């Protein structure tokens, strides 16, 4: 118990929580936008992989860090456009298309990686985003290390939640987007195009997912590994449910989740790690995600038209 307390009061733990949460926040916001508009995007896992690869590759090839983020976002948007095209106007099964996009994006990233670097055994490194030094705040004892030693991308993740919340709940665009996921016929009656709104949501959402992936290679680590996304996309889908499709609650979910993840890594180093096999610690994130889904199932506020294709003129 005292070991857990020691971990919880250490500044490095809280710094790790914010770092682990960042990619989840981006991707969860992306998925949330898609689902609010009525499209389940199971391409998330693969789109994170392509984002992780595209961002890293851009920097490795000599581009700037922010150029890398932009390229990752564009790559994600391209796969999002494909997902949107197949599921929105064509109304194909969102499950099948999403899994297909995940396979396509993942294998494309792996193929391109092997083409670019045929012989490497040790993944090459790039110079990743560095922690921002905020004069005054970063020098504070404890707080400075815990909260103010993050990279610009982490700050961007939090800003992203604020922007998504504002757009979804304070602008006509957000109202139209939410309505497309709740009552598409009403949107159509207003003279707006459900198809265009959903396409836009899937493309923008996929761009955010890819930035979440890029965080892994450009801020958290500095190399691209196969299987590095490792189910984070699926966890984000659980986080959207856990957050009841609300950005603020989803952010809390991501932080809570990252807290458990940071805790399990540190517990492995303690006496508990001697007794309990490390695989049990590694299972915790996945078990927690399932638990979150079960806990939230009773009071789910699912967008009413989620997974329902809309075809104009049909009831």
């Amino acid at each position, binding site marked *: 118990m005292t070991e857990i307390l020691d971990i919880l009061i250490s500044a490095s733990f809280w710094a790790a929580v914010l770092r682990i949460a960042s990619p989840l926040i981006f991707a969860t916001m992306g998925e949330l936008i898609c689902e609010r508009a009525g499209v389940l995007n*199971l391409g998330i896992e693969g789109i994170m992989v392509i984002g992780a690869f595209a961002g890293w590759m851009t920097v490795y090839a000599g581009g700037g860090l922010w150029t890398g983020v932009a390229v990752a976002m564009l790559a994600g948007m391209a796969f999002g456009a*494909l997902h949107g095209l*197949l599921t929105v*106007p*064509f*109304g*194909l*099964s969102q*499950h*099948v*298309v999403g*899994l*297909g*996009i995940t*396979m*396509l994006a*993942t*294998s*494309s990233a*792996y*193929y391109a990686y*092997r*083409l670019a670097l*045929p012989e490497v055994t040790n993944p090459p490194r790039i110079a990743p985003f560095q922690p921002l030094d905020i004069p005054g705040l970063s020098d504070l004892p404890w707080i400075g290390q815990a909260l103010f030693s993050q990279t610009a991308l982490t700050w961007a993740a939090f800003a992203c939640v604020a922007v998504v919340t504002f757009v979804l709940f304070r602008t006509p665009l957000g109202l139209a987007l939410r309505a497309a996921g709740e009552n598409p016929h009403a949107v159509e009656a207003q003279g707006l195009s459900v*198809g265009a709104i959903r396409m836009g949501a899937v493309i923008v959402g996929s761009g955010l997912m890819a930035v979440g992936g890029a965080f892994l290679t450009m801020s958290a680590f500095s190399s691209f590994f196969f299987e590095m996304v*490792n*189910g984070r996309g*699926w*966890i984000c*889908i*659980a986080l959207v*449910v856990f957050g009841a499709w609300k950005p603020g609650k989803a952010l809390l979910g991501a932080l809570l989740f990252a807290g458990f993840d940071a805790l399990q890594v540190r517990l492995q180093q303690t006496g508990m790690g001697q007794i309990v*096999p490390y*695989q*049990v610690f*590694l*299972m915790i994130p*996945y*078990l927690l*995600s*399932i638990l979150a*889904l*079960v806990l939230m*199932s*009773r009071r*789910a506020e699912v967008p009413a038209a989620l997974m329902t294709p809309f*075809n*104009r*003129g*049909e009831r």
Partner: protein
Amino acid sequence: MRLEPIPAPGPARTLGLPALAIAATVAVAALLAALAGANPLQTFGLIVKGAAGSRFAMLETLNRATPLIFTGLAVAVAFRAKLWNIGAEAQLYAGALVTVVIGTQLGLPGPLAIPLMALGAILAGALMLLGPVLLKTRLGVDEVVTTLLLNFIMALFISWLLEGPLKDPMGMGWPKSPALPRDARLPRIVEGLRLHWGFAMALICAAGVWLIQTRTTLGYEIRAVGQNPQAARFAGIPVGRVLVKTALLSGGLAALAGFSEVAGLKGNLTSDLSPGFGYTGIVVAMLALLHPLGVVVSALFVAGIFVGADSMSRAAEVPTYIADILLAAALLFMVLAILLTRFRLVRG
């Protein structure tokens, strides 16, 4: 833009569009090969040769198709009821695990051990999917995410067992289970040919699933639930119970892939027993349009692509991931082509 049904699609449409999907997939593959600096035609030639160019190549393809038939059937059965079982990978490992435990720990004679291993595997796979499906029917928890997450949990569980309680003491430190005794392995169909009875079992299962779907009440109920659960409930079909039965069938089939790989091919359990057979089963099932006999054909095709691409990438400078891209592209092109045989996109 909206979809408009085509009243009476002609053969040019119903046959032409799927053919176009195949052509588009081939075009993608050609582009990928060209990107790698290889000659596309030569690359295709090497893939075909690697998949079916010799007796050895063909047997390799049949062996690779065996687990894919099982996982393809598992997915086809579940998707028919719109039960989104993405956890065939975990069910496969559950089956493999029980196979190894029964085969190595109980010390039974072979003729008794083999059927018990198969039954145990089926049970383990069925139970693996029972949890998510009960969460779905009782609490409304989406099974896509739970089955996906269980794949990761199962992989870690297997990894722990192989480094702990199930570790082979003679394994030179490698994380692998002890090997099944000789008489607890599936014999070869023809002596001297490297093809085991797991393949025959897979064919029998495909026929069995086809019979269930076309000749039994359960098959009818599964279809009804998949097409429209509300209407099925209204017609007096116990939707929850049908989903549970579907799950048991689907999980059991996926687990047989694990049984057949361990008892027929590998002889022991390692954490890389399956290079994603569970996920590839989704492609296999979709390319077969969820038809159980079609699953056999599509599993052979998919296995051929993988085996051929492996062999090709050893000869040419084209990464083997070309196979994965090819199959994902084929999946997306095909679902679109099938839709367009019945609908067209019109303005307005």
